[in-house]
């Protein structure tokens, strides 16, 4: 290494002579940090998404590499958020990738003291059985004067404000056809 290279490699020299007088960019860079690439550059794909927390609807870009979410950032194109995210939105990569997230079905038998594992297909069949049974046991055809009621008050549901419109649409459609009217979500709360 020549003296000139040595001096030019010195951050203070680069800070005083270069285009970065405050020493917050190029001047402070080491060979290692200069060679680093952001995860957003090496991603296999980017999905345009929307933050799942409050109702402002900030744009997000979701970066995926090797089948894993590697980064979630604000979308600068969004006229709503202009690339910003709040602490919650910024933490939404953890929301998706945290090892505390539950990824398998859990089942608690009546009177049991703990969870047990259950196959998803089995759980679906069991839930369908219970819906059909609860509906049959609590069905109301007509009121005392013969007016139609067509319903069950034996089934309730709460939730929807964190879900997609398409999901809410199917929920309401199915429950209505089954006569289950006790469907509510956070908008009531």
């Amino acid at each position, binding site marked *: 290494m020549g003296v000139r290279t040595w001096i030019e490699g010195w951050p203070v020299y680069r800070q005083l002579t270069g285009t970065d007088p405050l020493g917050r960019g190029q001047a402070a860079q080491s060979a290692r940090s200069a060679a680093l690439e952001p995860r957003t550059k090496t991603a296999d794909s980017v*999905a*345009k998404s*929307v933050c*799942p*927390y*409050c*109702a*402002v*609807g900030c744009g997000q870009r*979701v970066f995926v590499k090797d089948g*894993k*979410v590697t980064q979630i950032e604000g979308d600068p*194109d*969004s*006229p709503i958020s202009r690339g910003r995210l709040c*602490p*919650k939105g910024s933490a939404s990569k953890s*929301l998706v990738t*945290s090892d*505390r997230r539950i990824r*398998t*079905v859990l089942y608690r038998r009546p*009177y049991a*003291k*703990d969870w047990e594992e259950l196959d998803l297909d089995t*759980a679906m069949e*069991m*839930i*369908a*059985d*219970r819906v*059909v049974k609860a509906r049959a*046991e609590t069905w109301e*055809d007509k009121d005392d004067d013969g007016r*139609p009621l*067509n319903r069950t*008050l034996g*089934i309730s549901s*709460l*939730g*929807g*404000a*964190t879900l*997609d419109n398409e999901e*809410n649409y*199917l*929920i*309401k459609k199915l429950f209505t056809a*089954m*006569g*289950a*009217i*006790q*469907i*509510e*979500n*956070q*908008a*009531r*709360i």
Partner: protein
Amino acid sequence: MAEAHPVGFQWVMEAKKRGATVIHVDPRYTRTSAVADQYVGLRVGSDIAFLGGVINYILQNELDFREYVVPYTNAATIVSERFADTEDLGGLFSGYNPDKGVYDPVSWQYEGQEQHAPSRGDTHMQRETGAGLQQESHGPPVPAGVNRDETLQHPRCVYQILKRHYARYTPEVVEQVCGVPREQFLKVCEAWTRNSGRERTTALVYSVGWTQHTVGVQYIRTGAIIQLLLGNMGRPGGGIMALRGHASIQGSTDIPTLFNLLPGYLPMPHFQQHETFDQWVDAIRHPGQKGFWNNARTYAVSLLKAYFGEHATADNDWGYDYLPRLTGDHGTYQQVLNMIDGKVKGYFLLGQNPAVGSAHGRAQRLGMANLDWLVVRDLYMIESATFWKDSPEIETGEIVTEECRTEVFFLPAASHVEKEGTFTQTQRMLQWREKALDPPQDCRSELWFFYHLGRLVRERLAASDLERDRAVMNLAWSYPTSGQHAEPDAEAVLKEINGYDVASSVPLSSYTQLKDDGSTACGCWIYSGVFADGVNQAARRKPGSEQSWVAPEWGWVWPANRRILYNRASADPHGVPWSPRKAYVWWDADKGEWTGHDNPDFEKTKEPSYRPAEDATGVAALRGDDAFIMQGDGKGWLYAPQGLIDGPLPTHYEPAESPLRNPLYAQQANPTRKVYDRPDNQLNPTPPDAHSEVFPYIFTTSRLTEHHTAGGMSRQLAYLSELQPAMFVEVSPALAEERGLEHLGWAHVVTGRAAVEARVMVTARLRPLRLDGRVIHQIWLPYHWGGSGLITGDSANDLFGITLDPNVLIQESKVGTCDIRPGRRPTGRALLDYIADYLRRAGLDASHYAPLETPGAGE
């Protein structure tokens, strides 16, 4: 707003940079107050008195925007001579019936329309079914023809009634009720009125804590009256912005997972009111009124076609008889009480955590412990899934694991990046999310869960010949699926929501194309156009920097991609912008059409000078200057002759729990509030009842930036948990001294329902108020904590009882009374004894509940 909607708040700061004055009114000094030009602290629950004072200031000084008010509002409309005001009846309006606690609103009607009033029985039904919610997209029905005095001098015109009603809300009264010094109050009035008119507009922003009051709807109405009087509606930089708290809570109201609505604010059929299809449709469209609701038959038929496909025919009234019927209140709180009473067998929780997030947490958990089965679908383990082993009631012995029969299924959900679909954000904007990757292991979308649940239920009923199963079997339930998990195609569902021509399957471009002959199907008429031209309009992502300031090519806004509703009002009656700097849409006389920066909220070629024939109805009855096209009379309503359970004008009532006697009227609290008088739902005593001193303080709750609602999506995350690690309670230095509370030490807050412990923060962010000759202290708590997660703590919502707004059945969970004591709360059985002692001292027992009407009211 800086705290709970920080990224949206950047626009407030942009406006401030450009010279806007920012005023923040809140019981507690927050991150918003810190950057506001003026902060006004007021007593929790006194907002109508404060805003009513602003109305009085406008009217006494004649500062209303008269050229806007006369043509665009109902200020000139004459009201029935039978109407009597709260000013004459001790805080009640005419027509109160103490037996049912509802009004007979016949006397509230416009002159000559008394026969169109709903009956008292109707009003009772409307309260039980939260019928006010139907008005989210339009006004309630009134006939088109009204008597008007455009000089505003008639003693019974709305303008004069308004003036008399609010005459009592003087700056002195505002100070007395709200605890706001009059100089501060007058500064707000001056700023608001000075900044409204031809050249300037003022925006009113509220967060939905406003809805969580027994007078919540009337809070918002009071704001609406001011914004109409000052000409701030339908104009850029004006309006009323509701900041909602969940990614698609607007969407879940538009396409409702709510008991009383069908998509697009059509009512769920009521067993008496809507026995037949025609009764149902006429109840929606109200033949004879003005505006677009006259086309309700096309919306209704198209919805039933979307639901039942080929099985919806003219011969079977489009399958109307398949629909279930309401008989009364089936809301979430009624359901929970029914669970406690053993009437509900199964419960689905879909991304919602009522054990922490709903009022009266103990009732929520006791209800869930008395089900046959519970299905919880969430990303993380939440308190509502584990009540049987670690709830507060396990500690007190009220729930015993080995004796709790509830069978619980926890099914992990797909996250927002693992599925595609639309959220509707708080400005009615649908934004499509692309899917980044498949959900892991057993995680699935709600779309997957409900599509396959429907498939499995249909398999089980396929051989049934029971009448009741026909609706399920005749349901149009065929959606394309793909991938290893057979995920339904969300875009196919969005196309059904948008609507299509039945014969050709071609997507519709607008709800104006809907037919009532069965040739169109449409899952939600107000969303029609989101798939216009066969293109997913919600997926549009033209960068904001590459389009106009209205940014019409980012996402899609209902209705018709219209960014500001009622924007006809941004131009004067002749169609000319009120001022060049506030131009938004206008009449182009050369082209003979409405044009501008946004999609005009008006018939495109209807001239400003158009006047309908006398017998016209529906859209044709709208004049060229009827800017409020979804209202039965085409006007913005200062006075609401119909549609509200608790009165045509907002009036200050005390919260259901208050330490103060109402300073304005003999009537203490909203006389029509929805109550559940049960021993397990005791409310703290409030004047004129004795013993309110046992719970001498007022408390309120709200959010922190770093957490989200009941914590299921935030207390599980390391960064957020580190940023806000513990439950705390804020008190003023004066209260800390009065009760011996130590900064950073422990304290517990007590109500008739629960005792909740928290770390103490002594702070000047809360200040004591001097009211009624004494000092009133207010306490603040965040409501994010519960027993699961990386950080745990007591739940503030356990403190509340259940009392609801009569219009929309939302609970009063932003104000209550309490005591606060130093140290941690008792545990185990001792906790129950501790609360029982408070109840005994407060004289609360199962034989007495607060009366709806208080002595002296009605006189």
